């Protein structure tokens, strides 16, 4: 009986190990299911199309061209490789300024006729309508729009997910923004955190340590919203003054804030790692005549390196994924960052800010899941790299 119980418990333990590993696969499954499905769909609203006259030789438009046309930045067909003729856009919103209610019918039953006629008579027309309302006549053709490809998603330089008629989903600025903010955050935080953890674990008196440690642990509990508000009120104006900037909401503000936020995690975890160094090893080193500092540097730190790597992974994870604080201090402008002193927009901030308003199951919604997939892959990549590094060090 007892043996069976033991057997059972051992199986439960093993089961838990596998469940934990399995969760990651579940996340992959669910995120990617939503995220991938949006690739290869049209950036236009579902069932909508762009229509022009058959005489128009333009067959294809990119999402950026469409945006520029409707923003009146492209106003002439000659810019798109046709004759010199101005582009007239017509859609459901301005249709009533062109046709009367009687012409269109109460339920838009004559809309098709009106539009086809309009396109026939004014060849420079670009019409944007639902395919349900508009049946195409012989004088009209539909323009092809590039489908969203993985490449355009990753390399696009503009992020206008709610642009009409075609959403523009280029994630390059978001990706670079995320990377620049978290990279510098960890660059600031790691040396500081390491120094502090060495101090706490090896140098400080037990008495001082007992005071400092709870304070640091306590600070990992401050909600990120509070950090965000602190950043907005203190750090942002400070940077503005010091660097004489027009805007204080910059990547630097985000990095500093994230560094502060990641510090408690890094300090706590690496201090624990340093403490696991066996006493025998330390004493052996000291007995050979090494100073305390040499022991720390040559014996303890190498021993604790895997723990410290773990600390920095946790730190990076927290930095890359930190949402609320970054949302408040980096300005969230979706432009490609050229330096630290510029506003940036990060991926988690984008997800948190946009998910609530995106229609469920729509293109925008799915693109946010795709962003989450990207975020997941980035963190996975950093983990694997960190793993490799610590594995290599153990071998040498």
């Amino acid at each position, binding site marked *: 009986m007892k043996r069976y119980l033991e057997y059972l418990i051992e199986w439960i333990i093993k089961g838990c190990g596998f469940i934990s590993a399995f969760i990651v696969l579940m996340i992959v499954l669910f995120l990617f299911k939503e995220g991938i499905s949006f690739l290869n769909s049209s950036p236009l609203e579902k069932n909508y199309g762009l229509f022009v006259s058959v005489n128009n030789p333009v067959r294809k438009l990119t999402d950026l061209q469409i945006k520029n046309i409707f923003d009146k930045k492209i106003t002439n067909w000659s810019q798109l490789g046709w004759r010199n003729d101005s582009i007239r856009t017509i859609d459901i919103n301005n249709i009533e300024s062109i046709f009367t209610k009687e012409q269109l019918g109460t339920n838009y039953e004559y809309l098709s006729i009106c539009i086809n006629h309009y396109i026939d008579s004014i060849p420079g027309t670009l019409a944007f309508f639902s395919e349900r309302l508009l049946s195409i006549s012989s004088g009209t053709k539909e323009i092809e729009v590039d489908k969203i490809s993985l490449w355009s998603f990753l390399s696009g330089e503009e992020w206008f997910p*709610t642009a009409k008629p075609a959403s523009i989903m280029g994630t390059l600025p978001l990706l670079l923004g995320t990377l620049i903010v978290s990279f510098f955050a960890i660059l600031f935080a790691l040396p500081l955190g390491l120094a502090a953890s060495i101090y706490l674990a090896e140098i400080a008196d037990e008495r001082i340590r007992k005071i400092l440690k709870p304070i640091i642990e306590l600070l990992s509990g401050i909600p990120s919203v509070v950090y965000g508000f602190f950043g907005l009120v203190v750090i942002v104006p400070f940077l503005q003054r010091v660097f004489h900037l027009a805007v204080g909401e910059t990547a630097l503000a985000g990095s500093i804030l994230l560094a502060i936020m990641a510090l408690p995690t890094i300090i706590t975890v690496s201090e624990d790692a340093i403490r696991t160094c066996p006493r025998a090893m330390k004493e052996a080193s000291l007995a050979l005549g090494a100073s305390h500092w040499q022991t720390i540097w040559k014996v303890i730190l190498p021993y604790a390196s895997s723990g410290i790597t773990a600390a920095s992974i946790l730190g990076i994870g927290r930095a890359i994924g930190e949402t609320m604080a970054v949302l408040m201090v980096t300005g969230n402008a979706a432009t490609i960052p050229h330096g630290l002193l510029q506003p940036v927009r990060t991926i988690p901030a984008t997800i948190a800010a*946009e998910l609530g308003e995106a229609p469920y199951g729509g293109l925008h919604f799915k693109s946010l899941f795709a962003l989450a997939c990207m975020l997941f892959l980035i963190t996975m990549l950093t983990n694997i790299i960190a793993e490799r590094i610590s594995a290599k060090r153990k071998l040498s």
Partner: protein
Amino acid sequence: MKLSNLFLLSALLIISCTNSNQDKKNADSKSIQLKGSDTVLPLGQKAAEAFMKMHADVSITVVGGGSGTGITALMDGNTDIAMASRDLKGEEKLKFQEKQMNLEIKTIAVDALAVIIHPENKVEKLTREQLEKIFTGEITNWKDLGGDDAKIVVYSRENSSGTYEFFKEHVMSKKNYASSVLNMPATGAIVQSVSQTKGAIGYIGLAYMSPEVKAVHVSYDEGKTFVAPSIASAKDKSYPISRPLYYIYDVKKTEKVKSYIDYCLSAEGQKLVQDVGYIPLM
């Protein structure tokens, strides 16, 4: 050993949790749920609080998350009333049609948007055309608008917020924002940023107006008349940038939600609208 005690404890806790499951969701008819736009949130909450004071048997839950969240929840039957600061989008309308749900859309208040700048900025008034050029990135320096030689820093709400869409449609003639525009997650953050950045411009709901920032006078007739945003000017419609706030619900649930919505539209409810800082309908 401590360990087994711990497991026992957690098992007990789990059991006690599941026990309390059983008395779940009994008085459903008397509980109303509101979900959606963060702009409407404070209003819905205040009205709910006042309403429940009069009707002790009704309980009203108010949940935020954004207009999209609320409308989705309405679609799935997870909420009774969706709060929205924007109209239904095309895809959403289609989905409601597929589900054969007939919606009632009630305007419960009006929100006016004030365009704000740093109080030390000399510029007092702007036309709609100028605003369009500022937010699309065509004008980038205050000296082109009669101010000092300083870079314009444009603050906007997040690209998914109802406010963002509204401003784009009614001020920028549907053109897209410049991508260098700074998007702030919340109106409070815009006020904070504009108050500490000299070259800043942004837009906020009138309710958020604070003495730390200055509202510009806006003209929609190419500079003939400029109007300052205020509750009075929004009420008589002389201030041009204002938008309705909605409660959306399924016609089938009218009976359940009617008394609450009627209360919101009553004189008393509209007084709350004014207290919160929005513009009452009457």
